[in-house]
């Protein structure tokens, strides 16, 4: 009975960790894996490994990097099998992204949404046609071809708008110190 109670306590603590890190880990996975259908599988696999290795976790160190370290290994194992996803990701990229996410996690705010709310401000600051492309692409999840049809524009023009919009958003996030500047 005592053992069971301890297990329940451990699971309760673990649930807090999962909730606190859910959005961050999903951001990480979505950054490095293209196939939407497996985000959740990788999330589940990562969390299960984290649970199984929790005894190895050094509590004097931040949890996020340790979690992303495990996720990174799982992602790389996935990418070795799914070549179409492997285009833009390697171990260096994963480590770099983990550093960026660590930087974001140190921003003010209790939740991931609060830590990244500057992004909303940056979207509002985009030129109208860029903002419209972003909203249709991400918030209404429209394919580029549909956006082109809706806005009576060519698909190439929409792709360019999205490219520029993402670059502008990145500049904005750097200016606001949400993400770090690249240092050589």
């Amino acid at each position: 009975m005592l053992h069971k109670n301890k297990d329940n306590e451990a699971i309760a603590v673990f649930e807090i960790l999962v909730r606190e890190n859910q959005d961050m880990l999903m951001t990480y996975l979505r950054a490095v894996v293209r196939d939407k259908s497996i985000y959740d599988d990788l999330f589940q696999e990562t969390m299960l490994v984290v649970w199984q290795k929790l005894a190895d976790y050094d509590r004097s160190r931040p949890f996020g990097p340790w979690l992303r370290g495990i996720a990174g290994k799982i992602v790389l194992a996935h990418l070795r099998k799914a070549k179409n996803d492997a285009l833009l990701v390697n171990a260096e990229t994963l480590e770099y992204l983990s550093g960026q996410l660590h930087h974001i996690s140190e921003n003010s705010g209790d939740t991931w949404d609060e830590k990244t709310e500057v992004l909303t401000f940056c979207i509002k600051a985009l030129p109208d046609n860029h903002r419209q492309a972003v909203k249709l692409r991400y918030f209404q999840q429209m394919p580029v071809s549909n956006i082109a049809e809706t806005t009576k524009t060519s698909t190439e023009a929409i792709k360019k708008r999205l490219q520029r919009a993402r670059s502008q958003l990145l500049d904005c996030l750097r200016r606001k110190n949400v993400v770090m500047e690249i240092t050589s």
Partner: protein
Amino acid sequence: MTAEPNKPENNDIDIDELTSKWFDSGPDEYQIDEYSEIICEKMDSEKLRQTADLQLVNSMLIQLADKDQVAKERQIQNVLNNVKNSCTASSQFGNATHSKFYCYTRPLIRYAVAAVLIVSITFIVTQMSTNTAMAAIDKMMAAINNAVDRTYSIMVEGNRENRQQQSRRNSQGRREQGQRADLDGATLYLRGTNQFVLYRQTSRDRTLINGGDGQTRWMIRPDKTVFTSSDPEAFKIPMPKELAAILTLDFKATLQHIRDHYKVKFIEDIYDD
């Protein structure tokens, strides 16, 4: 010698173009060439980081747009269910871990008492009085209330040969003979009202394992994929037809049903085991 396709060099790589393909192409349009693994190698660190930053922005946008709280909660609940069912559980962030066997057998126990009891009571035919059998059922139901972990060996007596022949006739043309495991000789581990593990042997002396923890059921077969299901009716143990109709997930209710509706007889040697 075949002509090698042109490989992109660092300076040739247009990051915006590359990321646009990755972010904005539909599944049918998305055809990353055979350089998919080469591109990272060909990019210097700065370009890799520029690319990674754009991937991060893309991901933050997806995350910002994802307002499906139900899906998020479901994701967390799936993690917790996986953790509860995992075979190596951390214990309070300490070093204690449970063995795989323990983890599989642990979540399982009281259910089977009922199944064993049902098999014993209904099939094992002897000359004991009805009152004694009723008292035995009462004891079993009390045992369920006490949540005692139990292990049972199942013996099926009676017209076993007839049932095997029947089973062969039924399965003819559907599955290879001898694959089906019999309950006779099976071992059942029980815990609580809905947790069990059942080990059965096929006629080829291979082991089949069924289990359930009240939420998930699984079946492990030799050299085959492990099945899991949240359907409480999944992977039904091949009970004799005359028993199948009365088995429910609530063993106590099942026992009560047997007590109320069946003529039962008591087998002393089984009960003493």
